């Protein structure tokens, strides 16, 4: 009793001393689980890194928080009238880098070439580009190996650097780990973005302040004048920091804490469907599966077995029990904001154990079989719990599933190396176009394409259609091809969609923002109310 009284009496003093701190009203203290890996804008094509880069650097075309493509450093873009495989971009005039250098087409040429270099993480997005040239101080021409109507979609995360600054500091090349040295650009920044890097201690604290010379002043709310970013990995600690007011904004509220955060004073949870679908992949290509009880045959090669699994999984139960309502059951491995998604495609089959059993019977597996399911345990929301629920559901149709849940660093190589029979994967589509899904997940695994297709599925007819997608300029015809491809994919059932994830951001009262489907935060759109 005495102890408690003392603690309570001390509370107001201590609080003013350390919780409120000397921060002004416009400072936004932001936390999330993951830290940016580098400050080099072309070294890591990965969510948290890109988010940090977006505050400091800018792309030519930006995808705003509503998912629309809006002008950033390019004010307009259209295919050349003379040559269909050239994109002409008009660049914004009067933009300066944080160091005072002017932005022009030579910087854009330099940056795109840098992003296309061997050690860049973004080169795949620009694989169709053959040449980038300046056609004037503020005119840029991007030449592709054939008409590429969707090139602008691929430019939304490719940041512009200053050529002079990079060359003066020896940062022309993107970080190369193997070379055993770090590059200047991994620790220093010089962008055109709305925020200037003030200080950074990796894993501890990154401070950015508003750029007084930003071209967009007056055009965007720009209510945040200082951003203090702290990664907090432990979910309980992260939520505690939001509840105590030590941070104002967290990007990942764990589903089990949603009620706690929502009921707290001065904080709210804002929610939106994420551009990420969670599904299972089935090894349909192998002659015989590695870890199953059937010898000499691959049960997944039979489409009836795949169909049986599809209808034996109770997606609504997973949504209600495992995800506590925080997911949207899916019928296609294409998230809703992506072009090519339709409501009909996303309709998932009704849960029907009897029909599934009949299909198994028909396929000759009436007595069932056993198989191993590989699942990550630290990548997606409740990933391991979803797999555990699936084990029970498939047991009802005689498939005995041995669950192997591993950390992501061990799980994903299994898919890349084709060492798994049955696996979980999540997929987000940064280009907002179905081609991205087909390229990585449906095309036969070759050197350049199909690198995430761990199913062994190979369909030459489909491959040809996927390849021709990239150069189809007639958008209507292209939409039809995409629809045909999805129809084909739905017939094959090589993937079993589960659901689309939902994003939960926790934010202190007084701030206003929408939730970005890619989990990207653009602080320049944050307003105060």
């Amino acid at each position, binding site marked *: 009793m005495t102890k408690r009284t003392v603690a309570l009496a001390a509370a107001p003093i201590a609080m003013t001393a350390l919780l409120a701190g000397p921060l002004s009203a416009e400072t936004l203290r932001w936390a999330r689980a993951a830290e940016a890996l580098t400050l080099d804008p072309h070294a890591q094509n990965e969510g948290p890194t890109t988010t940090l880069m977006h505050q400091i650097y800018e792309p030519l075309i930006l995808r705003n928080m509503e998912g629309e493509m809006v002008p950033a450093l390019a004010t307009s873009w259209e295919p050349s009238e003379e040559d269909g495989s050239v994109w002409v971009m008009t660049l914004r005039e009067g933009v300066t880098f944080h160091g005072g250098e002017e932005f022009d087409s030579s910087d854009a040429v330099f940056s795109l070439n840098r992003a296309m270099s061997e050690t860049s993480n973004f080169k795949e997005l620009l694989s169709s580009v053959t040449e980038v040239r300046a056609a004037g101080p503020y005119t840029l021409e991007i030449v592709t190996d054939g008409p590429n109507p969707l090139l602008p979609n691929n430019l939304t995360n490719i940041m512009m650097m200053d050529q002079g600054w990079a060359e003066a500091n020896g940062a022309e090349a993107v970080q190369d780990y193997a070379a055993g040295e770090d590059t200047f650009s991994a620790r220093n920044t010089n962008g055109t973005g709305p925020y200037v890097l003030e200080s950074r201690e990796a894993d*501890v604290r990154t401070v950015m302040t508003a750029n007084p010379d930003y071209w967009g002043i007056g055009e965007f709310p720009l209510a945040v004048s200082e951003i203090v970013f702290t990664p907090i990995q*432990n979910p309980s600690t992260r939520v505690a920091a939001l509840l105590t007011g030590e941070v104002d904004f967290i990007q990942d509220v764990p589903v089990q804490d949603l009620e706690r955060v929502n009921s707290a004073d001065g904080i709210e949870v804002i929610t939106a469907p994420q551009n990420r679908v969670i599904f299972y992949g089935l090894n349909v290509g192998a002659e015989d599966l590695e870890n199953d009880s059937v010898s000499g045959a691959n049960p997944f090669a039979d489409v009836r077995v795949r169909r049986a699994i599809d209808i034996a999984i109770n997606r609504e139960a997973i949504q209600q029990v495992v995800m506590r309502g925080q997911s949207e059951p899916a019928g296609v491995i294409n998230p809703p904001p992506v072009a090519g998604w339709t409501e009909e495609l996303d309709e998932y089959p009704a849960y029907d154990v009897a029909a599934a059993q009949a299909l198994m019977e028909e396929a000759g597996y009436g007595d069932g079989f056993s198989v191993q399911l590989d699942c990550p345990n630290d990548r997606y929301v409740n990933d391991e719990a979803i797999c555990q629920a699936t084990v029970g559901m498939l047991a009802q149709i005689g498939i005995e599933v041995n669950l192997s849940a591993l950390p992501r*660093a061990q799980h994903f190589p299994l898919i*890349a190396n084709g060492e798994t029979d049955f696996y979980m994967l999540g997929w987000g589509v940064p280009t907002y176009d179905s081609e991205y899904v087909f390229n990585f997940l449906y095309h036969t695994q070759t050197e350049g394409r199909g690198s995430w297709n761990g199913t062994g599925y190979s369909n030459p007819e489909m491959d040809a259609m996927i390849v021709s997608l990239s150069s189809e300029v007639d958008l209507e015809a292209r939409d039809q091809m995409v629809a045909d491809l999805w129809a084909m994919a739905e017939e094959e059932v090589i993937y079993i969609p589960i659901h689309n994830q939902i994003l939960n951001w926790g934010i202190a009262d007084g701030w206003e923002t929408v939730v970005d489907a890619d989990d990207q935060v653009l602080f320049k759109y944050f307003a105060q109310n």
Partner: protein
Amino acid sequence: MLTYILRRVFQSVLVLLVVGLVAFAMFRFVGDPVDTMLGQERTMQDIERLRESLGLNKPFFVQYWDFLVRAVQGDLGISYRQGRPVAEIIAERLPATLELAAVSGVFALTFGIVFGIFTAIRRKGLAANAIMTLSLIGVSLPTFLIGILLIYVFAVELSVLPSFGRGEVTDLGGWSTGFLTRSGLIALILPSITLGLYQMTLIMRLVRSEMLEVLRADYIRFARARGLKTRVIHFRHALKNTLVPVITVTGLQLGSIIAFAIITETVFQWPGVGLLFINAIQFVDIPVMAAYLMLISVMFVGINLIVDLLYVAIDPRLRA
């Protein structure tokens, strides 16, 4: 004497080499760094190229040999996760861990000895029994749970202490210290209690049983018979004689405080080497993992070596 020291040093180096070899053999089971390094849009070609250039295709003992050759030249490599020299990152992070370990060591020692004496003298008292019962919590509850519990009570419910981080730090020529600011000191409280609780109960129980033993000894009885004050008997005669084993145990526990810091640092987002190591494991950041494990084993081996040498100094029979 000299041969003894040389032999011990030689053995220590051998232990270090074996630890390194085992570590490198294990790295293959932690996962593949290439996937996390390349991002979603990597092709099979990229994977092959990076594996080749990082030398990940080589057998583990070759990778270990390469590491050793560079390490003896002072080059610990570049972190896969942060893209900066490992030596620099560790030097940046070490002060946080050492300060936390020092504070929790002092906490464990002070409270351990005080409570130990108290429970030994007032063996049958209510307070002593309460402390003994509560100390069971310190031994039986896992560290992360204690940490989260403390955060819930002191940060969320009472809002008197911060829930994460080191507060404001001052840079003293490459050594960042939290001792000089108020927020830095306050930030130390919860993590050091979390980290030191186990050691505290250990020391407390050790002091208590040693003390009970000593209090039964003949010279204490004799001191009582001489009519000495109880306080003098307890603190001058009894306590001094209980401290010898306590000091030995504390010395050996120092290493484990630093090693146990991994969990505490994760719970409190404490930017020390423990948190660095956890992140390195998740990312399969082999250069950082290797450097951290070598650092910890150098520390353990070093402490043991010093203890061994001290025995020689104390015990003349070993000098033969």
